[in-house]
């Protein structure tokens, strides 16, 4: 069994390496001169040239990549042109914020999606099923940034229940950083007021982010549960008199969750993508906004770092989902038949 996991992690590392090459190529193909871009048109030529040397732009392409890779392994990702600070410092500041949002929306997505899927199967073709299907269509159909705008409109102005900008209320001082995630740090600090404020700042962006994934999960759960409900073993269990609820929540749910989990892992990874726009709208200082600005300002080091982190997150989510699938499906666990 272990051999299988090692082989799988090996392929993922390979993918990561491939990703770093891809990102490096994209970074370097940028027309225009990043050094000139950073220092502005008026900077004298020799200063720009010095920066160019410092950024190894003069060396051949492959050596630049090798140097960059060695640096990355030593956590030295070079300096960000925008913030003038080592990229690693920016990441330490912004990454926890985005992780906070993404983990909450992932939680909503998984629990909500599966719950809605079960409900719409149980009350199939009833009014409740209809309502859930409409919600899931709306959820799937509208991009996160449209929901963001609608939420800002409703909660920002009409009925100001939840804050729609920033990470903390102006009056609240940020907690001593332990994990970098305000909600957890406040809790560790025992500061309930702070915790409530940080949480309320998180709520709207998180919900805007997760609606699409939630709807997708609900739809996949419903369709795979409906399909499995006609299989012989479910009919046999009905014939044996096993109560409807037990069949629905155990014998039908467990096999039906397998397709949902693989879709969920894709959608959770996609949260980071959508976070780009949502953080922009809620001007929430997360890693995605930082990455967005890096791309717009062609800040190579920052951009490569953010993309690599997204790749790593994607792979961790994939490994987690493989583990959950292995738990759900004994054939995968015991035969080591990984799903491609």
């Amino acid at each position: 069994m272990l051999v299988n996991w090692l082989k799988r992690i090996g392929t993922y590392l390979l993918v990561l390496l491939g990703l770093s090459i891809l990102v490096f190529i994209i970074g370097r193909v940028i027309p225009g001169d990043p050094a000139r871009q950073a220092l502005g048109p008026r900077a004298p030529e020799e200063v720009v040239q010095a920066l160019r040397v410092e950024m190894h732009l003069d060396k051949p392409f492959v050596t630049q990549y090798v140097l960059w890779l060695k640096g990355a392994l030593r956590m030295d990702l070079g300096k960000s042109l925008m913030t003038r600070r080592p990229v690693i410092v920016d990441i330490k500041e912004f990454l926890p914020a985005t992780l906070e949002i993404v983990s909450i929306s992932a939680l909503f997505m998984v629990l909500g999606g599966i719950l809605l899927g079960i409900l719409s199967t149980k009350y199939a073709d009833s009014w409740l099923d209809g309502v859930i299907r409409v919600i899931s269509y709306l959820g799937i159909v509208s991009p996160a940034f449209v929901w963001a705008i609608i939420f800002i409109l409703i909660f920002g102005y009409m009925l100001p229940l939840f804050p729609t900008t920033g990470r903390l209320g102006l009056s609240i001082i940020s907690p001593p950083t332990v994990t970098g995630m305000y909600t957890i740090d406040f809790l560790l600090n025992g500061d309930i007021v702070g915790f409530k404020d940080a949480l309320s700042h998180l709520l709207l962006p998180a919900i805007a982010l997760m609606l699409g994934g939630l709807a997708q999960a609900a739809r996949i759960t419903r369709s795979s549960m409906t399909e499995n409900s006609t299989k012989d073993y479910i009919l046999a269990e009905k014939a044996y008199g096993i109560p409807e609820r037990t069949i629905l929540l155990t014998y039908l749910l467990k096999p039906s969750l397998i397709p949902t989990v693989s879709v969920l892992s894709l959608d959770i990874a996609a949260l980071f993508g959508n976070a780009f726009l949502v953080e922009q709208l809620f001007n929430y200082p997360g890693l995605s906004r930082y990455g967005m600005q890096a791309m717009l300002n062609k800040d190579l080091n920052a951009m490569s770092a953010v993309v690599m982190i997204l790749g790593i997150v994607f792979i961790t989510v994939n490994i987690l989902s493989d583990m959950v699938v292995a738990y759900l499906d004994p054939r995968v666990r015991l035969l080591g038949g990984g799903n491609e």
Partner: protein
Amino acid sequence: MNNKQEKVVTKRDKYENIKQSWYKFSLNKMSVVGLVVVCLVAILGVFEPIIAPFPTHVGAYVNFKEASIPPNTTYWMGTDVFGRDIMSRIFYAFRGALTMGIGVLVVVVPLGGILGLIAGYWKGNWISTLIMRVTDVFLALPPLILALAVSAILRPTLLNSMMAICVSWWPWYTRLIYGMTTTLRNELYVKSAELLGASKGHILFREILPNCLGPLFTKMTLDMGWVILTGASLSFVGLGEQPPIPSLGTMVSDGAKFLPAQWWIAIFPALAIMVIVLGFNLMGDGIKDMLSSEE
């Protein structure tokens, strides 16, 4: 049994097929709604100069007298800060959106599809592993981010943003066709074609590919919606069609600054995006039901 009879019989078979497919498609009323929405969007987009109330507002037209008027009888969806009619601009933006959708799919489906066919049929040897590992690398990033990174490099135009989406979208089709080909290549009709001595070209394109068309068309219809959505996200951050040419993403992002007072400037383009994607999604589900085999 001359050609005329052949026509009659095949026509009857075909007619029977179409009637059966339409029944399965329209079984779920929502799919019909989707079809209607998509047709409406197409008509509005293509015939925009005729249908739109203020076709001239599409270009660099400025009329401060009429700026920021809420929806009324003349401007059904109100006007923006430059006094341009939002509805006409949305109709024009439909055309941009559809060109983006079709343009991307026309590139991505054949490219991804053929790679998927090759990788799937020759699964096990190096060409297949190479293709699939490269696909994994491209899929390791959410499509929006890859598209952002690529379009950030190029000058922001509609064409470049389409290219950016192509770069991040082709692997989805490779993986779809790869998945199907690896199972289809073991079907008996493929085995018997091989044993008869049929050429690899015949086997890939006449035996395997026709059986992938069902899920392929379903995915293409759904993807029309997603591609347009991604395109809107790109233009939302200014990487798509440049002003004054209207695109839904830019209209939403410009309008967002004027919330909540002039809410209509941002809300109507946002709703327009939802309507397009909703239409294609509903239609895609209908096609999935239509092509699903079991009665």
